[in-house]
């Protein structure tokens, strides 16, 4: 109990500029693809510098359904809102031989998903090459690589100011309603605002998020780590004047955003980086970026998510082709085609308490939790994921 109390104090006491062990823990209260909105402030679909022609045109269902063997009366039937389940079925199985084109998108033609043509994006210069990527941050940092934004940033539901896109609001609603919980723990041994040897960890929690009276994610709630290696990573970072950054590119894994439990739970970023600002009120806000398997992104949206075409009006095969087109890393040795695409997530987090999977001890220094008893774990020290 004394150990616990001391650990708690380490977390809750105001930290001063002293060379002492410190620890900060958070629960993520918002996660969304880091897309830059170049349009008017409160008009998500309107054209802007990012997408001069406005949002990607909705799926031309009539056009897609028009085949030499389907009658106009059949198409009219499917277009009737009453018959959406049937529409979903025929859209899904619209391959030449009724194949499921969401599963096998290359059986459908590329109708051309309009890309982002703007010059500003959030994210990182992942390849440390200012000449690639084609984007600069709003602050002017050049060489930003964000192929995912390039491919999908003009979707209507993705567009909008940070924390305002239709998709962001919707998907974070699922997280806040308890679908999953993402935790962050940081520790160091110097000043929490300036420390060159910080251990930074992502975990998933066993408990649901708790909301406050305003419907926001409640601060200072306790969560215990779900001992799941797929959604857990520990990286080395540094803090300069309250800005947390990875010391070197690393593999970063964390629990992916989702709107149902069929969707992949894992984000795995290669060459990953993060940059967070420690906020005066105690929260954390920033970005995590890296290269992600673009086929996982596609499947999440088209197969597991099942809402790309029906709810967002986006032609899924075209999305597949767009991701493939803008993939920019990890070429296949055989085909030479890139298997990963640069991307970034925007994350915001509020203070929390993070405890070991058995809820008995505060995780004051990040360590790996793989479900084995603590006695079988390697030394309880930081274990970088790569």
């Amino acid at each position: 109990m004394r150990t616990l109390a001391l650990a708690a104090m380490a977390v809750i006491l105001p930290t001063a500029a002293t060379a002492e062990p410190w620890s900060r823990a958070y629960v993520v209260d918002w996660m969304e693809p880091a897309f830059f909105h170049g349009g008017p402030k409160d008009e998500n679909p309107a054209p802007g510098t990012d997408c001069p022609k406005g949002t990607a045109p909705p799926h031309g269902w009539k056009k897609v359904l028009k085949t030499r063997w389907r009658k106009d009366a059949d198409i009219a039937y499917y277009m009737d809102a009453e018959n959406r389940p049937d529409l979903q079925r025929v859209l899904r199985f619209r391959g030449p031989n009724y194949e499921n084109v969401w599963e096998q998108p290359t059986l459908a033609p590329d109708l051309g998903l309009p890309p982002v043509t703007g010059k500003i994006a959030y994210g990182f210069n992942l390849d440390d090459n200012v000449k690639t990527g084609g984007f600069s941050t709003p602050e002017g940092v050049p060489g930003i690589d964000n192929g995912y934004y390039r491919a999908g940033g003009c979707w209507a539901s993705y567009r909008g100011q940070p924390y305002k896109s239709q998709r962001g609001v919707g998907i974070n609603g699922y997280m806040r309603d308890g679908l999953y919980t993402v935790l962050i723990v940081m520790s160091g041994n110097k000043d929490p605002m300036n420390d060159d040897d910080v251990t930074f960890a992502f975990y998933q929690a066993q408990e649901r998020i708790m909301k406050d009276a305003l419907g926001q994610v409640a601060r200072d709630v306790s969560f215990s780590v779900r001992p799941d290696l797929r959604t857990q990573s520990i990286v080395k970072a540094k803090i300069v004047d309250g800005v947390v950054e990875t010391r070197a590119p690393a593999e970063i894994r964390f629990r992916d955003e989702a709107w149902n439990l069929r969707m992949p739970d894992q984000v795995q970023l290669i060459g990953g980086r993060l940059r967070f600002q420690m906020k005066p009120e105690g929260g954390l806000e920033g970005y995590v970026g890296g290269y992600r398997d673009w086929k996982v992104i596609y499947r999440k949206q088209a197969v597991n998510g099942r809402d790309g075409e029906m709810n967002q009006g986006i032609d899924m095969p075209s999305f597949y082709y767009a991701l493939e087109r803008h993939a920019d890393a990890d070429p296949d040795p055989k085909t030479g085609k890139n298997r990963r695409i640069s991307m970034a997530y925007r994350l915001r987090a509020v203070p929390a308490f993070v405890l070991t999977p058995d809820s008995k001890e505060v995780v004051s220094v990040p360590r790996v939790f793989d479900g084995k008893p603590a006695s079988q774990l390697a030394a309880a020290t930081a274990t970088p994921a790569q």
Partner: protein
Amino acid sequence: MSMRALALCGVFAVAPLALAGCASDTSLQANASAAKPGEVVGMRRLTAAQYRQSVADIFGADIKVQGRFEPEVRREGLLAVGAAGAAVSAAGMEQYYAMAASIAEQATAEGRRAKLMPCQPASAKAADDVCATQTLQKYGRLLYRRPLLPNELAARVKLAHAVSTQSGDFYAGLREGFTSLLTAPDFLFRIERAGSGRPVDGAMPVDAYARASRLSYMLWNTTPDDQLLRAAETGDLLTPAGLQAQIDRLTASPRLEEGVEAFFDDMLQLELFDHQSKDPAHFPKYSQVVATQAREQTLRTVVDLLVRRNGDYRDIFTSRDTFMTRGLAMVYKVPYASKADWAPYTFPAGSGRSGLLTQISFLSLFSHPARSSPTKRGVALNEIFLCEVTPAPPGDVDFSQVNGDAATVKKTVRLRLEAHATDETCASCHSMVDPPGLALERFDSLGEYREFENGERIDVKAEMDGQIFEGAAGLGMLLHENPRAPACLVRNLFASGAGRPAVGPDKPTAQALAKTFTEGGYRLPAFLKQLAANPALYTARLAPAPALPGATTKVAARSPSSLKETGR
């Protein structure tokens, strides 16, 4: 007939089935010491908790009691004292009737009959006076906390017979009989009658049944059980040995915790949680769940310290031991290291938390919805823990220094109060009540710890009774050593048990009891045994009944039978 009795009878006129216990003979005597044996010398309305617990103990814990209870009245710092002056309004009677009907329906439901019935009716489709008599007699005794008088029982059996015959359903008749008992004044009120003993210090001893009720509600917060009623029936309870045997039995039971919980729920004014609100813009962590758990946290803390661990009462001001939930831990900003709903927790030494005064319950109940209030906290502390009542402020107080534009200039509440208290009229009271409140200013209106207010570091130094102290820990230590604190508890315990404040002629008794409590090391279980054995607890001392504002003056129809019943 006194106004109190008139009011009572008047309101019961709306429920024809409940008239049996209401008659002129139930009127309270102006001077209880002159009351004859059998005359009514006290009436205390059951609190909501007592009603619920009584029903659970009589009919089963799974019986749902749904309805709105009459607002409870706090007098002399206690609802238990206020209950002696509480009436029932017409609307309240309707609620009681609805609850009674629902309870009776649940109790007689088909699945419960085997457990409920002491007999098997000859036919479930017809009246059976023998079985109805047995059943109503058994439950009537428990509900009235005394055996039913012959005509009380006969009236219910007659009612049951009529309804059973009309409906062709034995249990429908029984249901009406139960409803009638549950809406009778003799159930809704603890009607106390004078006993035959000699007056104690000018107060009239109550009879054995009233003695049983006082004992049971004080120690268990529920209706007397069968054993206790038997002790009353045999007169055993009126003997020192018989009384002591029952005290030993009741205090040895785990149910003592329920009695202690109920007392502290009352003394600490925790029912205020029912009406508490916090501005979500300022305190988004506040919710009904937090409020409910904060109330329970305080009660768990008290019971654990005082009953389970038999601790020193004064430690309620200094102990850092408590119980926590995940939701409460969020407000306290501490980790919740448990997978259980509740877990023991000890605040770290440097946390600033010290006893009940730094729990959410006290800190949030005695604050404004959007800001803390040293004055409210100070007033409450003085009243609850020291039995010192602060006079209400005069009507023409200038609050501009506290609430007006001037308040925005002065960043901390201390500065605002100092400016406010320059007015001599205000200064006299504020100098008494503000210091303990200012010592608690590191806790906001919800009870969250803070170091700063509007960017200004909060100063928690204060002076009370000539002693300078700092913060909640200093205040806790000061109260721990203050002899008025345990004396106040004793006064409240006596008042709660006897249903009257320990003032006037009862003051010497309270002082003697306080000495006993001190000599016993401030241990509550032992003291409760001593208090329960004190003859003064079982006496009635009534002032002339005050007129009840808003009470109906309609006089209930009197039946000869009711006159006879209550004249015993």
